[in-house]
């Protein structure tokens, strides 16, 4: 297992380098230019100065190599400095956003907590809801509970989040006034009241995202349970005289969880990616909102860095899913 993991990690390096190049080229070739962000009242020579200062006039391979150096060498040094208080990165140029002129990583670190609390808790809640629903739906296939679960899952799948989000805002903010429609990032949780405020403002975005996640995962859970319920070893367990509880929760569930755990692990990178649309609807200034603003403003370093971080996470969690699979299923060995 360890050799497998190390091998996969080594193989990930060329993959990620290739991905970074493709992202860089795509972002660079995309329409839109940093110049369009500079007001027309700025005189041409000043405009040229600004572009030079940003480094946007350099040839593409110079910019790419510089970005590689900054991402893999300078930024880790900055991280080390901030943890240990050392000064290795003194005087080195960091990846700087073209929009705000502040280091990209600092902005990402600022935005990360909002995304993780809102999208992360939506994912966790989605999984917690989905697994029991999937189990019971499969156990009582075609019962009214299963039909209802299927119906809600279909709604969660097919109705886009910008629609459910707006509907929730209309009902619960505008008409009932229970929850705020705008997420207040500067809210600090210090006591019970501010905690309740935080819960209230998280309720709607989390509900929208949890519905979407739960509907996906519950379908996986249900079909995996159905696959296993039909297996012969379930009949063996019943013939042994085990109680239904043991049959379902020990025999069937443990086997059914193998593919579902993989699906859940593969979904975790999307948490960091943020829910672009939902964050926009509820004005959560997380990573998704950051990415969409950067794309609109042709902020190449920001878009490049964010998408590359997502790519790293996806590659990592693919590996984690594979390793989990090997740990959960004794039939799979990577030696």
């Amino acid at each position, binding site marked *: 297992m360890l050799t497998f993991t190390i091998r996969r990690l080594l193989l990930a390096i060329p993959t990620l380098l290739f991905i970074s190049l493709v992202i860089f080229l795509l972002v660079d070739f995309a329409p839109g230019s940093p110049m369009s962000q500079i007001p027309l009242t700025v005189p041409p020579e000043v405009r040229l100065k600004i572009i030079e200062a940003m480094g946007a006039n350099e040839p593409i391979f110079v910019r790419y190599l510089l970005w590689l150096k900054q991402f893999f060498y300078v930024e880790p040094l900055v991280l080390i400095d901030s943890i240990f208080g050392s000064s290795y990165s003194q005087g080195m140029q960091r990846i700087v956003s073209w929009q705000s002129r502040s280091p990209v990583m600092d902005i990402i670190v600022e935005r990360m907590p909002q995304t993780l609390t809102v999208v992360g808790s939506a994912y966790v809640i989605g999984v917690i809801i989905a697994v029991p629903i999937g189990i019971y739906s499969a156990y009582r296939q075609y019962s009214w509970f299963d039909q209802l679960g299927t119906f809600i899952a279909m709604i969660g799948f097919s109705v886009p989040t910008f629609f459910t989000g707006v509907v929730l805002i209309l009902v619960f903010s505008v008409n009932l006034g229970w929850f705020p429609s705008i997420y207040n990032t500067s809210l600090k949780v210090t006591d019970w009241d501010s905690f309740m405020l935080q819960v209230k403002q998280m309720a709607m975005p989390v509900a929208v995202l949890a519905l979407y996640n739960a509907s996906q995962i519950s379908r996986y859970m249900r079909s995996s349970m159905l696959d296993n319920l039909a297996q012969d070893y379930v009949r*063996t367990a019943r*013939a042994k*005289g085990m*109680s*239904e509880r043991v049959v379902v929760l020990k025999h069937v569930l443990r*086997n059914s969880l193998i593919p579902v755990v993989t699906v859940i692990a593969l979904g975790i990178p999307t948490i960091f990616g943020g829910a672009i649309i939902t964050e926009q609807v509820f004005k959560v200034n997380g990573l998704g909102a950051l990415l969409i603003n950067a794309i609109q403003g042709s902020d190449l370093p920001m878009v490049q860095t964010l998408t590359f971080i997502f790519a790293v996470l996806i590659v990592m969690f693919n590996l984690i899913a594979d390793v989990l699979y090997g740990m959960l*299923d*004794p*039939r799979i060995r990577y030696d």
Partner: protein
Amino acid sequence: MLDQAPKSITPLVQVRGLKMYFPIYSGLLRRHTGDVKAVDGVSFDIMPGETLGLVGESGCGKSTVGRALLRLYEITAGNVVINGTDVATLAPEALRKARPQMQMVFQDPQASLNPRMTLADIIGEPLDEHTDLDSTQKLARIYELMDAVGLNRRFANRFPHEFSGGQRQRIGIARALALNPRFIVCDEPIAALDVSIQAQVVNLLEDLQEKLGLTYLFISHDLSMVRHIADRVAVMYLGRIAELSPRDALYARPLHPYAEALLSAVPEPDPTLARSRQRIILQGDVPSPANPPKGCNFCTRCPKVFDLCRQVKPELVEVEPGRMVACHLYPNTSVAGSTGVFEAKEHNQQGVSQ
């Protein structure tokens, strides 16, 4: 030998009028429009220590009988009395408590073992549920069972996929034996195995029967193997028993035309005899169990069919000592008396006559 046992010995297993229908739902509203009559009124007894072979072609309901006997299905009608308890009507909790005395060896040794459990877990699990052995006693029992079926003790912590087919079937047998059952249904235990392994497993089953005094229902489509292991043999066709006879008598002179046709399909090892052998080739296909023919189930393909067969369903009656046949060719005193009953039954037959 055992079939001649005096009537004073009570059978270990008594099956009366066992019916197992699987409902068919069709149409827009999923209405209940019919039933697949997998098992349609089967009755037989198994004496303690006896092996009853159950043979028949694919889809005739053999496995369904085996599973229904252990109530792995909710049976439609009938009684199954095993060792004095009517398994067919037990409440779920009482049924669970009754499971130790009746066990099953399944057909597919790969699929019938939980892939995520080690051998010790698989064999030991019923001990957790039904006994209060501590972990050392449990391990001792697991080792004892592994010895009994000829598995090396070192294998206790391995997973099923690490074994060969024959070894897996041994695990399945050890698992079935864990709770000292009296009655074991062997549901085609050798069908998924190589021929060389089949003999090993069958001999193991016979040895265990001798040592532990087990009673078997041995379901198989391998007629030679049934001849080897069974004391009496029931031949099934389309959800009903066509003939139930002592093994030697059946193989020497089958009475029911279907049993005759089926046994004529057994390959003859002697080439000179094989050349002179008369095979009975049945025409047509097995009718759908969802829509069995009126009258005798076999009337659509029987070479000896006559009018009565298409009208009246023959009952399984004893025509010679120890030999039960469901066929109008063997008139019995009891047939005339019960004709009225047959006619009353005709109304729920949805079949078409030829």
